Structure formats: structure tokens, C-alpha cells
């Protein structure tokens, strides 16, 4: 067990942290609302090779794993970067897994924005996370991986999370990319990756929400002392910080499990998503509350975090229903421990 980052991983994280901090201050985040997509920033991401990170070198990528992408996605979450990251990254890697090299090449070039459906089944019935901006969306229909091209009339759904949501009612323009026994597995792996990437973005969001709350609690005084010295203010923030650290570790472990084809990977991916959704929601809620009435105003940055904490999770899945799916996974896990009071001591 080793939690140390390599020098390359450290450098990758710092590079993107600096890039996002510089390119994406809160006024850029606000300017991208309500669509939640900054085309110029997305073009910049294509330039720096965001999608290349997790693609093998012989296909023109950087040959890194999901873990490296997790490091980047946390920094993106911290700055609420208004570009589609989780679904596009997972879609790109799904194109690799299914050998769809033509569409992969165009996705890497930045000429086609390729995203992923939230679940198997016909796309027409689903709310697509990047539907308002994607050129193509990958779905699993009747056991086949299809790339559905953007129909002519797409209406962006105005939403509180400033996500580029849309429905595609016309899904006639669909190309079959792959079929066969491995396809469904590859698709569900891509959905695991989406969960982990969304989870770690929520971890980044939670980290910054906590920092905003702590900064305000250090400066703001009430009844003559800084409000951070009141335990009713400080203690829930401490709980949020601990949970956030735990959620980060869980996303790290889940990405490690996916990268190393560990059997527990789907369980860990779901666990990380459910927990990060809860952690981000609590952190943003308490942090907003620390800001008092000011936190409720559009002017205050914490409300940007509060709204996204909810929407970023909801666009993937209901965490409550995810718990039931997780139960299927854990009840199948190996080796029940022997029973008896001895287990408890």
C-alpha cells in the first residue's frame, strides 16, 4: 500500500491546477452560465491534450491511466471548470477499447465532441449530460455500441447545475461501432469511469467549498469574535473535511482498481460516487450556511458550488438507487467472515 504520487503524476496535477486557477476564475464560470460550456476553454483543453492523457501512446495518446485523469478531474472540480470532462474522457477510452479508431482520431483532434449516454438503452429516452454541446454520443443499444450523431434540433435544458443538458429525440443517425460479447462489458466499464470521474470532481468541489467556508469563518466576526471559533460553525466543517479526504482516497482506490482490472472495481466505483455525492452536498450546504444570508446571493461564489454539488451527481444517477445496485455487488463478493462474537472484539 502506497499513496505516493510519481513525479510525473505530481507534475500533471500541478500543471492542471495552475491552468484551471488561471483560466477559470469565478467570473469565467459565471460567464459560461446557464449553458455551462465555455467553447474557448474547451478548445484550449484540446490544445493541451486533456483527452490524450488516458489514450495509449500507439494511438496518439499519453498512455496514462484513469488515475492520472482522476488527478486532473479533481482540479477541474475545484474550479467548476465549464467543460465536459467525465463523459468525454470515458467515451474516448471506450472508443479505444472498442477499436473505433476513426472516431477516436476525430475526438482527439477536437473536431468531434464525443460524449457518453448515462445508461445502456435507447438514447432518446435519456437526459444526456453533454447533449447540448456534443457532436456524437455513445450508447449501448441492443448489445451494440452505437455512435449517435447530433440531430438538427437540439434544445439545451436550462438547469441549476449549469450543465449542457439536452435530450436527443431524433437518434436515427446512428453508426454501429462494435458488437459482440465484450461490448456490454466495455460500456459498463465506461460507466464506472464516469462515476469515478464525477466523484472526484465532486471531491474537488467539496474541497473548495470547505476552503471558502473556512476562509469566511476566519474573517467574519459575530458578537466580537471570529465565527470560526464557535464550535457549532467549526465542527461540521471539520467533519466535512475528514469526509472529503476519505472520498478522495476512495476515488483513488477505485481508479487504481479499474486501472489494474481488480475484481472489486465496479463496487469501488459505485462507492466512490455515492460517497462523493453525499460529501459534496454536505460540504456545500454547511459552507453556504456559514456565509449567512450573503451565501444565498448570486454575488457569493459559494452558491455556484451549492447548485453544482447537487446537479453533478444527479446527472449520473440517483445515489439512493445506486445503493441498491451497490448491494448487488457487495453481496456477490467473496469469503464471508466466520460469525461469532469473536469478530467483534
Amino acid at each position: 500500500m502506497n499513496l505516493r504520487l510519481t513525479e510525473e503524476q505530481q507534475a500533471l496535477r500541478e500543471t492542471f491546477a495552475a491552468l484551471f486557477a488561471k483560466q477559470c476564475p469565478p467570473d469565467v464560470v459565471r460567464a459560461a452560465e446557464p449553458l455551462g460550456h465555455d467553447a474557448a476553454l474547451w478548445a484550449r483543453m484540446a490544445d493541451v491534450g486533456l483527452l490524450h492523457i488516458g489514450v495509449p501512446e500507439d494511438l496518439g495518446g499519453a498512455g496514462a491511466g484513469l488515475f492520472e485523469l482522476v488527478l486532473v478531474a479533481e482540479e477541474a472540480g475545484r474550479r467548476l471548470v465549464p467543460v465536459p470532462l467525465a463523459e468525454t474522457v470515458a467515451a474516448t477510452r471506450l472508443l479505444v477499447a472498442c477499436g473505433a479508431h476513426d472516431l477516436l482520431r476525430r475526438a482527439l483532434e477536437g473536431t468531434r465532441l464525443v460524449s457518453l449516454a448515462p445508461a445502456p438503452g435507447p438514447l432518446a429516452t435519456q437526459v444526456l449530460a453533454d447533449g447540448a454541446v456534443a457532436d456524437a454520443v455513445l450508447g449501448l443499444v441492443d448489445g451494440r455500441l452505437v455512435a449517435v450523431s447530433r440531430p438538427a434540433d437540439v434544445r439545451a435544458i436550462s438547469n441549476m447545475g449549469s450543465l449542457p443538458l439536452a435530450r436527443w429525440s431524433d437518434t436515427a443517425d446512428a453508426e454501429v461501432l462494435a458488437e459482440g460479447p465484450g461490448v456490454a462489458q466495455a460500456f459498463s466499464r465506461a460507466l464506472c469511469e464516469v462515476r469515478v470521474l464525477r466523484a472526484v470532481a465532486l471531491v474537488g468541489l467539496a474541497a473548495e467549498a470547505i476552503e471558502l467556508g473556512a476562509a469566511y469563518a476566519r474573517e467574519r466576526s459575530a458578537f466580537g469574535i471570529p465565527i470560526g471559533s464557535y464550535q457549532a460553525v467549526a465542527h461540521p466543517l471539520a467533519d466535512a473535511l475528514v469526509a472529503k479526504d476519505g472520498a478522495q482516497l476512495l476515488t483513488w482506490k477505485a481508479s487504481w482498481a479499474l486501472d489494474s482490472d481488480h475484481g472489486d472495481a465496479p463496487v469501488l466505483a459505485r462507492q466512490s460516487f455515492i460517497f462523493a455525492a453525499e460529501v459534496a452536498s454536505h460540504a456545500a450546504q454547511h459552507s453556504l450556511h456559514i456565509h449567512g444570508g450573503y451565501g444565498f446571493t448570486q454575488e457569493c461564489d459559494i452558491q455556484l458550488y451549492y447548485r453544482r454539488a447537487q446537479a453533478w451527481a444527479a446527472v449520473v444517477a440517483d445515489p439512493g438507487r445506486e445503493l441498491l445496485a451497490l448491494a448487488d455487488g457487495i453481496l456477490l463478493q467473496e469469503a464471508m467472515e466466520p460469525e461469532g462474537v469473536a469478530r467483534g472484539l
Partner: protein
Amino acid sequence: MDFEEPAHIARIRAEAEAFAAQHVTPTVVEEELRTGDGVNRPLMEAMGARGWVALTWPREEGGAGLDPFEAAVVLGVIRAAGGPTVGAGTTMLAANAVRALASDDLKARILPGVAAGTTLICLGFTEPEGGSDVFACKTRAVRDGDEWVINGQKMFTTYAHRADYCFLLTRSVPGSTGPTGLTMFLVPLDTPGIEIQPVHTMGYERTNIVFYNEVRVPDNLVVGVPDHGLSVIRAALQAEQSVAPSSRTRQLYESARAWAASATDPAGRPVAADPTVRARLARLSIDAEVADLLGIRVAFLEQLGGKPGPHAALFGPETYVAWSKEVLDMVGPQGAADWSDPECVAGGVFEYHYRSAVASTIYGGSSEVLRSLIAEQSLGLSRSRPKA
């Protein structure tokens, strides 16, 4: 970054499991449940024979030369098998301070027996009015020639009735307050003037209140420098935030999962089909994983020489308490039957957890104190407790 259990950990785990199978017999387990002593002398001596009391000390000092994580795995396996490990862990808190700061003479006298599992040391820190504030110490030590005379009382001196020495915190500078003016002793518990009264807890543990009445202790049993006991306590408490290879939340989860996989409701339906059971079990699995990961992070940061905050010490016990109730809710009324009753569920393990969990958010540093430390150290918020 790698979460795989290294081969040397798997090896030591297998060794510890073989040891537990041999030495943690049903008699040992049941005796601990009946007495709550927290220590079993034959087990301690068997551990000592393998260097598994002073696990991290070098072999030439009677230890086994293990790293902190290996050591935690050994103790975790013995504990999970039902063997009491409070005695070993507590003795080592005091022994590490003695090893770091005591005179050569005292070290030579105490430490070989500690490593062999034959010398047991309990802790005399907390006082009836002290609680989380360990430095609110009123027990007095007054020098008299080459002896000291000690008067006072200590609460929660676990296994004092089984130990050889008490690692005792006293106030030796009259009128001093807080962390100054303190002296630490190793007091032999057969010294005249010591009276030990049992205090039974609801968590199947026995602890003690210990009265010190004109107890005379020779000067050579002072640990460290008289009147400067703070550094001695620090040396001992450094180990308190010790590495946990597996959280109590994990143990509770594994038992709950085993129950859910095989139990049926009164109508004969598998409980595993009940969505409310499934949802709770799934949510518990997450807290178990997170509690373990935060514990691994402590071990990792300590290896790097860092000082991790008490994050694991807060999250693990808090989730353990919360789930000890939720799991009992799932199990139903029969879950309230204790281990001694033939109707008990899974050997009474859930009843046991519910009784004992609540103390875990108190004795390793109460959750309220830990939250304040995290708020101050990691979030830069102002101190909320009065300065000493």
C-alpha cells in the same frame, strides 16, 4: 500509488492467524467476555515469546523488528479473533516512553519483562474531574529524601488489578497548572497505600478507580526528569494515534454482511432481498472502506515522517457508533440478546458492538476535541478552548 496488500503484510497476517488459532482459544475469548479484564497473562507471554508484545522493537531488545503497519496487523488479527489486546497496547504506551526517556537502570529493570509479556503496565492519567483535559491533574507527588510520597486518585485505570506497574501522572510542583510541573512515575501496584476498586462498563469491560494514599515510591522510579513530565507523556501519547489495519466499522460491516447473506425474516424470506437491508448494508460498506482508507493514510503519512491529523480517529469511531445502532435495527429484536443467551444472533456480536462502540468516540480523544483539533490545524480556525 498502489492499494495492493504487499506480500510481507499477507505473510505476517497468515502468521498471526495461525498464532491466534492456537492461543486465542474459546476459553480465552469467553473469559474476556466474562471479566472484561482487557488482558490475559498466558496470551501475553505467548505473544512475548514471539516478540509480539514489543512488536516494533529490534529482536535484540525482545521485539520482532516489525514496521508499524505489520505490528498493527498482528494486534488486529488477535483482537478480531477475540483475544484481549488492551493490555499489550497500553503497556507499550508506557514502555515506549520508558525506552525513550528513562534512566539506563530503569530501562534494564523494566523493558526485558515488558518485551517478554511478563511485565504489565497500566496508565494512571485521567482523574475524576479531568476527563479529556489530561493536564487537569491533581494527584500530588512530594519529595521526601530519596523517596516520593503520592496522594490522589485516578479514573479509568484499565486492568490495574492485573498489572505490575502504573505509569502515573502526578503534579510535583505545588501551585503549578496545566502541562507544567508534572512528574511521571512507574509505581509498583503492590505498594502499600494503593487501593483498586472495580468500575464495570456497559461494554463488557472492567476498568478501575485507583486511590493513592501516602504511597511511597523510590526516586529511581521517576521516568524522565522530575517536574518536566510533559515530554514523557508526549513520548507515550505519540503511539496513541496508532495505525489501525482494519477499522471497527469494517469488522461490524463484515459481520453484518455475513448475517445478511444467510438470515431469513420471520416469514422465511431471505433478508438479503429486503431493499431497506440492502441499502443500509451498501451504505455501511462505504463507511467501512473509508474508515480503512483513512487509517492507511495515517500509516502512510507517518512512514514519511509526517504528522497526520486525527481524521481516522474521528471518522472510524463516529461511523462505528452510528452503524452499531443501524445494524441492530436491521437484525430486529433478537439482536438484543447477548452472547450468553442461546437465542443470540451471530454469537451476540451486534449486541456487543452496540454496547462497546460508544466508548470508542471517547477514550482515544473525544470526538469533540478531535473536531476542534482538525478545525484549528487543518482549517486555520481560531482555537475555541481556553488556553492553558
